[in-house]
Structure formats: structure tokens, C-alpha cells
């Protein structure tokens, strides 16, 4: 039986790339395709789904899916395998965001972007999970690269875990890794401005694993200095049920990110009918379309007023929810699953 193996640079419990690995595995298994999922480094919390890359044993004819989101030297031997290869490009954060904050991750990202052409050339088929990513792939030497959106399975959003700490005021939710390109500093500034000017009882819940413990401390200091520190909570990474509960309690999702290869939280917010205020960065506009209040300026006071509209204007909320549901149809599981299987079959030849 032909097997499809997935290879990642690192696997974790919450990150979008690992979640895609899990969803692809389930889809492949449903279609009778075997194989295993491997990563150069595996977070202890992800060991049930992923094995270390050194354990990969690909039989002739097996397909190797390389999920590329950061460089690892341990991925290079995979390129030398005679097996057909499908490269899935999730984007690599430009290192300029990271030099000041995490030298190791910055180096991995810098080398990751430099090595992308090597991976692009070695792949029999290359796909990006957004047009934004596909454009980078084409530039890297995969002229026939095409876009294959992420698998978005709303069944994962059904289970509700523990809700966030209750409070009377509106809840602003930020969901993304705590990393400099996500610009949590701006989200905090906009929230603090909104709270000071319009919503004294508002709360901000920040969900996401930190780039490093010291970066989390830095953001906590920014929150404390903002004047709204008591209303800002850093939840760290949440399990999907707990994240679902947070969406269920949220009044608005805020993203000030400057660099996004896709942005799953947009689709999650659409699913829960939560309005979104976001900057149109990277792939965000192609995912959010007309269902997001786009913050195209450079003024956190304007962001604050967009939060005010998103939270207090019932007609606007209803319209955004309606448009969000329409966007979800563009990314329906059935549609993307069919495209995914087609790509796998094509790469297998």
C-alpha cells in the first residue's frame, strides 16, 4: 500500500502547521493511505501524533510531504530521498522581526528563507496555503506552484472547554503566537486607548505560546505600562476546547499582525460569529475578504474606534457575521479536502 509521510521542522501542540499535519493524516487515513508524521524536533505535548524525523523509513514510491515553515538541517536528508515529494509552504517569518528578540529562531528563519529555493527545486509539486505564500514559492524557483488552502475542520470547534475568567465588560480576543511580527504591542496600545476613551470595563485576553519566556515578560511589561494592565490577561497556549470557549465569550477578535501566511483565527472567528478588526497584512485580505474591519491606517486611536464599532453596532456585527459565514464557504472542509487529495494524487504521479 502506498504511504504518505509528513515531515515538519518542528511539531507542537497548538501551532497551525502541526494542526494541519494532524488534519491531513486523518484525511489520508480515511482514504486508505498509510504513513507517519515526523518532525526534526517534537514538543513533548505532541508526541502522540509525531515521531522524530530520524525514525522515518520511506519505502520506494511513498510520498513525502514536506511542511516548510522554518529551517532545520535535519530536513536536508529528506531532499535526497528518491521518493516523490510534495512541498507545502506555510511561510517563514522574515528574520528582521526576530534578530532583537531570539537569535536562534532568527537564524532558523533567515536560513529557512535562504534555503527555500533548494526545497522548491527538489519538490515534484509545490503548494502554498495562500496566494501570498504561493507567490514566494514561485519566486523561489517553483514556477508551477499553486495555492492549496489549509484544511479547516469546524468539527474541532464544537467542544467547549473552560471559559475565560468572567467579567462584565466587553472582551477583546487576540489569538496568535507571541512573536514580534504579530505586534501584540500595538494590540495592547489600541486596547488601552479604547478602554481609556470608550470602554472602561473592557478586557483583553491574549492567547498564544510565547516566542520565549523573556519575550512574554517583555509583553507583560508593555501591558503593565499601558495603564490597562489589570484588564489584560495572557493565557498562553490553549487547548482547542478552551480556545473555543474563549471565542464563545469574545466580543471582537483583534489582529495587529504585520506578517501572516494564512491566519486560521480569522476563520475561527467567522465560525463563532465574532467580528474581526485586523490589519491587511500578508495573506489576511485573501482569507478575510470583505468580512473584516480592515485597519489600513497607522493610528491606534482609529483601531480603538474600530473596536468600538465592532462591539457596539449591532447592525454592523450582524453584517460581518453574515459575510463571515460566506467566507467560511470558500474554505469549506469538503472543498479543501478534495483539492488536498487531488494534490497528493498528482504528486504521487
Amino acid at each position, binding site marked *: 500500500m502506498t504511504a504518505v509521510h509528513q515531515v515538519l521542522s518542528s511539531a507542537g501542540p497548538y501551532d497551525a502547521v502541526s494542526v494541519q499535519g494532524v488534519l491531513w493524516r486523518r484525511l489520508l487515513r480515511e482514504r486508505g493511505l498509510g504513513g507517519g508524521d515526523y518532525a526534526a524536533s517534537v514538543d513533548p505535548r505532541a508526541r502522540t501524533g509525531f515521531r522524530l524525523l530520524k525514525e522515518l523509513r520511506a519505502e520506494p514510491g511513498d510520498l513525502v510531504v514536506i511542511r516548510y515553515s522554518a529551517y532545520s538541517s535535519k530536513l536536508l536528508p529528506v531532499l535526497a530521498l528518491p521518493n516523490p515529494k510534495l512541498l507545502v509552504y506555510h511561510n517563514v517569518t522574515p528574520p528582521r*522581526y526576530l534578530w532583537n528578540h531570539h537569535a536562534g529562531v532568527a537564524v532558523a528563519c533567515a536560513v529557512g528563507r535562504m534555503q527555500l529555493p533548494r526545497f522548491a527545486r527538489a519538490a515534484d509539486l509545490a503548494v502554498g496555503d495562500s496566494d501570498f505564500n504561493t507567490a514566494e514559492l514561485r519566486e523561489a524557483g517553483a514556477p508551477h506552484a499553486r495555492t492549496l488552502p489549509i484544511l479547516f475542520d469546524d468539527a474541532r470547534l464544537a467542544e467547549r472547554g473552560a471559559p475565560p475568567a468572567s467579567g462584565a465588560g466587553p472582551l477583546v480576543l487576540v489569538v496568535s503566537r507571541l512573536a514580534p511580527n504579530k505586534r501584540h504591542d500595538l494590540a495592547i496600545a489600541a486596547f488601552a486607548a479604547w478602554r481609556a476613551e470608550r470602554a472602561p470595563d473592557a478586557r483583553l485576553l491574549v492567547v498564544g505560546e510565547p516566542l520565549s519566556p523573556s519575550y512574554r515578560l517583555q509583553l507583560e511589561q508593555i501591558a503593565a505600562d499601558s495603564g490597562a494592565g489589570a484588564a489584560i490577561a495572557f493565557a498562553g497556549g490553549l487547548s482547542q476546547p478552551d480556545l473555543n470557549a474563549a471565542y464563545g465569550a469574545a466580543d471582537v477578535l483583534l489582529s495587529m499582525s*504585520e506578517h501572516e501566511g494564512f491566519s486560521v483565527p480569522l476563520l475561527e472567528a467567522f465560525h463563532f460569529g465574532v467580528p474581526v478588526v485586523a490589519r491587511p497584512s500578508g495573506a489576511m485580505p485573501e482569507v478575510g475578504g470583505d468580512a473584516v474591519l480592515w485597519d489600513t491606517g497607522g*493610528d491606534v*486611536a482609529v483601531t480603538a474606534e474600530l473596536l468600538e464599532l465592532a462591539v457596539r453596532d449591532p*447592525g454592523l456585527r450582524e453584517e460581518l457575521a453574515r459575510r463571515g459565514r460566506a467566507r467560511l464557504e470558500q474554505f469549506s472542509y469538503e472543498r479543501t479536502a478534495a483539492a488536498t487529495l487531488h494534490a497528493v494524487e498528482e504528486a504521487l504521479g
Partner: protein
Amino acid sequence: MTSPEDAFSRAEEEVARRRSAGGYAGAPGGALDSSLAAGEPSREQLAEWAVIEIDADEVLYSSRAGAPLTFFKRLLARLLRQYLVELEARQTRFNIALLTRLDRLEERMGADEEAPPDRVRDPGG
């Protein structure tokens, strides 16, 4: 109801109105620049980074059992200090040498750019 397409301009108008009345005092326009903003490292920053010096107190662990693990890792770093210092020194030596060469190269390029065209050396000889 505000339409999604009109929301941004309406937000801008409201901010202008409020600012003229003294509102949003803590959020001056253009506040998107901050210490976390991205940027390529400057020459001064490169020089600073060239000197590798890891403080054992920077060793942290983020799990629930963090405190004892952090203590153990810091202890390990101190026990291996002699080895780590040598490693830091060798890497620093390489970094400084490379930066110095880069500086010389930039100086030469600058001199060539400033020289009259007929005095620029032909790299092909």
C-alpha cells in the same frame, strides 16, 4: 448601521472629533512605531552582537515545573562555565574578525565610489 466599507473612515472621523475635544490624549497619531518594530540590525548592533556573552541568569524554563528545572539548568551552565567561556571567546574572535573585514570592504567600496571614474580600478585588471 455602519457598513464594513465605511467603518474605517467613520472611525477616523470620530478620532479627529474626539482629539479636537482633547480625547485620545494617551494615543497620539502615528503611535504604530514602537520598540518592537522590525528592522535590519545597524552596524552598532552588529558590533554589540559580535561579542558573545551568555548570562546564566537568562536560562529560563516555561513549564509548570519551571523553577527546579531552571535552577538545575543554571547550575549546569555554571559547572560548564570554563567550556562555555572558551566557546564564547572563539565565536567572538571569528565575529570580530569578520566585522573588521566587512568594515574594510565598505571603506574600499566607499573610496572607489568617491574616486573619479578614470581612477576606479578595473577589477578585471
